[in-house]
């Protein structure tokens, strides 16, 4: 065995490292140095495998350790609440659904990122997802205008229209651009319970509320008049919303399976992945499933386009992103370590790796880089197009309760327990009551015919 002097060995190692790694790869990852281990709360979501791979990459590159607490969706919020309400948080970084973060912003449970490190800033290429990471405490609103940076987006989820390119081609149909075209195409494609033309969630709660809202926005509807300006007049029971709801109900009843009243995300994915459904309205986070031969019978046949427009040509989509936040009651050293991982994760190299592993990158430059040509990432143009009009919804403290109200009443209209007009009137009245109780400036539109 040859024995080199210590300095010579170090120089040799450094030279090999520099020569082996391409120059652009070196600058693509933020250098965060040695950090103490951190614990991270993350959901067992469809995009978790991609995130896990990138965390593994961080550990390999930096030698820093991250303990992942992978939790089913239903348990994440409760774990996060317990963490921030206790003495010292067991988590140093938590990945939360954007809807939940408002409660944490308002409750003062999080550390503004610049309070941890004054020099921290999001890279200029980072997408902002409707400013969901900023909180203006005075306005009680998520906005960069006067707001503090409290979070950054780990996964910018949004729904897209998935379709089977081979089936549409065979039927001589182009991917639908309006909800009316979806209905027309579905009429041609649906064949009893052998083949469903179009599937979307009808399950009560978050499922139907979230999916329907894109149609509502496209038809020109809204939930509240101008919450950012403090006007909480409920506008849910507008004629536009009724058109959207009637259309949504028709799509579910005529194009999908008979169990539309409890059709959840797992069902929609299953129907598309088995080839039983031709088109579907589904979150992008589920994309990786369709190109995985172990899980899909339609590998390479699924394509995406932005969600269809409404009758007046308006587009609508709701962002359902996951944000990373740092609890206020974590120790200073742990907060710094969590922020160090965040800097690394936000760097271009990490985001490229995340995209290639099946995640949705949060940097614009990744979407325009060479990897955008990778067939696995053929969803990117549709996503970028949709992000032009996708927006945040229910961005106020009452959001969770409003979701419960809308999610129940829409489902009741879908299964025929009440008319669409009555469902929207009932939900509007309940939301108005809620706002009144909380001292908001509110009111509601004249009732729709029931």
């Amino acid at each position, binding site marked *: 065995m040859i024995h080199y002097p210590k300095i010579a060995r170090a120089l040799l190692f450094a030279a090999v490292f520099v020569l082996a790694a391409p120059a652009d790869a070196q600058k693509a990852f933020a250098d965060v140095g040695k950090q103490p281990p951190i614990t991270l709360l993350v959901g067992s979501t469809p995009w978790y495998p991609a995130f896990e791979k990138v965390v593994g990459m961080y550990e390999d590159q930096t030698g820093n350790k991250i303990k992942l607490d992978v939790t089913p969706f*239903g348990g994440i*919020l*409760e774990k996060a*609440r317990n963490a*921030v*309400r206790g003495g010292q948080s067991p988590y140093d970084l938590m990945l939360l659904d954007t809807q939940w973060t408002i*409660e944490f912003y*308002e*409750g*003062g*449970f999080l550390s503004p990122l610049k309070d941890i490190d004054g020099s921290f800033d999001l890279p200029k290429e980072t997408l902002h997802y409707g400013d969901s990471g900023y909180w203006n405490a005075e306005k009680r609103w998520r906005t960069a205008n006067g707001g503090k940076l409290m979070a950054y987006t780990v996964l910018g989820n949004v729904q897209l229209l998935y379709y089977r390119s081979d089936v549409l081609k065979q039927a001589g149909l182009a991917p639908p651009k309006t909800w009316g075209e979806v209905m027309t195409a579905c009429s041609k494609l649906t064949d009893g*319970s052998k083949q469903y033309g179009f599937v979307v969630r*009808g*399950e*009560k*709660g978050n499922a139907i509320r979230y999916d329907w809202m894109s149609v509502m926005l496209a038809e020109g509807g809204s939930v509240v008049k101008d919450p950012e300006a403090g006007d909480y007049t409920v506008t849910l029971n507008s004629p536009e919303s009724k058109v959207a709801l009637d259309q949504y109900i028709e799509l579910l009843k005529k194009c999908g*399976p*008979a*169990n*539309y*009243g*409890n*059709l959840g995300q797992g*069902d929609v994915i*299953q*129907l598309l992945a*088995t080839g*039983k459904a031709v088109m579907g309205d589904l979150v992008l986070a589920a994309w990786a499933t369709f190109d995985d031969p172990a899980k899909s019978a339609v590998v390479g046949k699924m394509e995406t386009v932005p969600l269809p427009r409404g009758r007046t040509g308006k587009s609508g989509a709701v962002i359902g992103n996951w944000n990373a936040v740092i609890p*206020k*009651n974590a120790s200073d050293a742990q907060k710094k370590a969590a922020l160090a991982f965040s800097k690394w994760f936000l760097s271009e190299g990490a985001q490229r790796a995340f995209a290639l592993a099946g995640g949705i990158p949060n940097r614009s430059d990744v979407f325009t880089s060479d990897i955008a040509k990778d067939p696995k990432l053929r969803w990117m143009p549709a996503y970028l197009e949709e992000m032009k009009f996708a927006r945040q919804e229910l961005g106020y403290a009452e959001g*969770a*309760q409003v979701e*419960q109200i809308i999610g*129940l009443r829409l*489902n*009741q209209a*879908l*299964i025929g*327990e009440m008319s669409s007009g009555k469902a929207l009137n009932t939900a509007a009245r*309940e939301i108005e*009551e809620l706002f009144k109780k909380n001292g908001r400036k509110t009111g509601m539109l004249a009732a729709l015919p029931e």
Partner: protein
Amino acid sequence: MDFLNRTFRHWSLLPAVVLFVLLTAYPVANLVRMSVSTIEFAQGTETWTFTPLRNFALLRADEVIPPAVRNTLIFVVAAVAIEMVLGLALALLVAGVSRGKGLVRTVMILPILVPPVAIGSMWKLLYNYDFGIFNQALTALHLPPVNWLGSTSIALWSVILVDVWHWVPFVFLILFAAVEALPIDVLEAARVDGATRSQLLRRVVLPLLKPAIVVALLFRTILAFKVFDEVFLLTSGGPGTSTELVTLHLYKVFFEQNQLGYGALLSLALIAAILAFLLVGRQATKAVRV
């Protein structure tokens, strides 16, 4: 000496009393305090405001409560009644066979061992409209598929069926042990006296089994009032409010809507309902004895 003995007996209860206060009385007292408060979080601290009427007003205005109470009662009565009848029938049937009782008992116990989460997931697959085994079987028999979990008129009964599958073995085990312990001489005497099978069952076996039946009934009713996991996984209370139960609504109020005070009031209402049932059950049992 007698005084010392009495004193020692009283003080020896102290550890149990302390445990009871710490583990039961204090949490319940805290729940009562929460139920008359509004709890809010601001600037990292929690604020309790004494608002005794607010949560009651929320309870009165809550439109999900009436269907949730109705469904809970249907669920408890139907599930427990079916489980008791099937459990008793199985216990009598198995007790009557001469070989293989041990095997039957082992097989019967399996559903109780499966975690409720696994049961919910498993039955959700079985009930799946397009790919579930039940509808596959119906289709193979040229029958139309059934919308097990998506129909408002069927969903609650589908959930009850799962609960029956899960808990019949529990009733069976309790009653089977009681049947095996029945005094043979009494049964023989009844037979010698010319009792028919039906008379033997109604006038000898059932009265002798009554204590075991009451125990099984009480346990099952309490657990049926508290059912959560299976319904949460199978239907989440839908479609509409067709499978919404009080426990499920309580979960949503407490954990999803973060209304801690109102959630506490609902918890107390559920505890009160179960206690009321136990008291009524106790009185009914006494009346039957008399």
